């Protein structure tokens, strides 16, 4: 089984294909892979409790680590201590950690 880091930079309110990327994360986890979903740029917008947040909670429930770039959160005025269920703030260093560790890293 492999380690995957999926990086979502798009806003699900703006791009319908974000759901497909979440689906890819869920599918990889279902097949037994270790998956982390890292939200960055406008990808962090559903980390604010909203209509699209439940999808992130579902991914966390499926065993996927769901992280949101702390800088992107700060830029958008989203408090790191008030994130949607299942989402945790993290530094961008997480991406470099995964790359250095040999994770398969995919940007969307």
């Amino acid at each position: 089984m492999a380690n995957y880091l999926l990086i979502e930079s798009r806003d699900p309110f703006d791009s319908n294909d974000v759901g497909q990327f979440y689906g890819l994360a869920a599918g990889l986890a279902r097949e037994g892979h270790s998956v982390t979903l890292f939200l960055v740029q406008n990808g962090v917008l559903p980390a604010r409790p909203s209509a699209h947040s439940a999808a992130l909670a579902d991914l966390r429930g499926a065993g996927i680590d769901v992280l949101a770039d702390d800088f992107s959160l700060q830029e958008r005025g989203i408090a790191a201590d008030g994130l949607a269920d299942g989402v945790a703030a993290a530094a961008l260093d997480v991406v470099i950690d995964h790359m250095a560790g040999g994770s398969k890293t995919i940007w969307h």
Partner: protein
Amino acid sequence: MADKKTLTFALMDAPFENARSTTALRLIDIAARRGYDINVFAYEGAVYLPFSHQAKHANAVHGHEVEEEDHPLPREWVSAVIAEAEKNGGKVDWVNCGLCVDERGAADSVDGVRRGTPGDFWNMASASDGTLVIPTK
């Protein structure tokens, strides 16, 4: 450095247009601070990231002169990550796609940037611990 890593990034966005360029350079900066060896393959509009003729400008709307506006320039960020990597025992091998450069007249780059082909990206990725492609939307 016992755990020195080699990472490869492929970039495609032109500067001054999208947050992806900023995020990419934030990532490269983190790797540079760790002293990693970093490969960058700049494709399409990304060949303008290290373009040496980028110039600061004033902002008349805000009433700022050039110095006060201090407009950020990606070429300075590229030079900064190259210097940061060297300071920490690493290096940045920044390759601009040659055909993309020719199409755009973007041959003049800051020091540390060389010309290459997509074959360089294949070789870089094959020899790296991790690779990240940041495509345009």
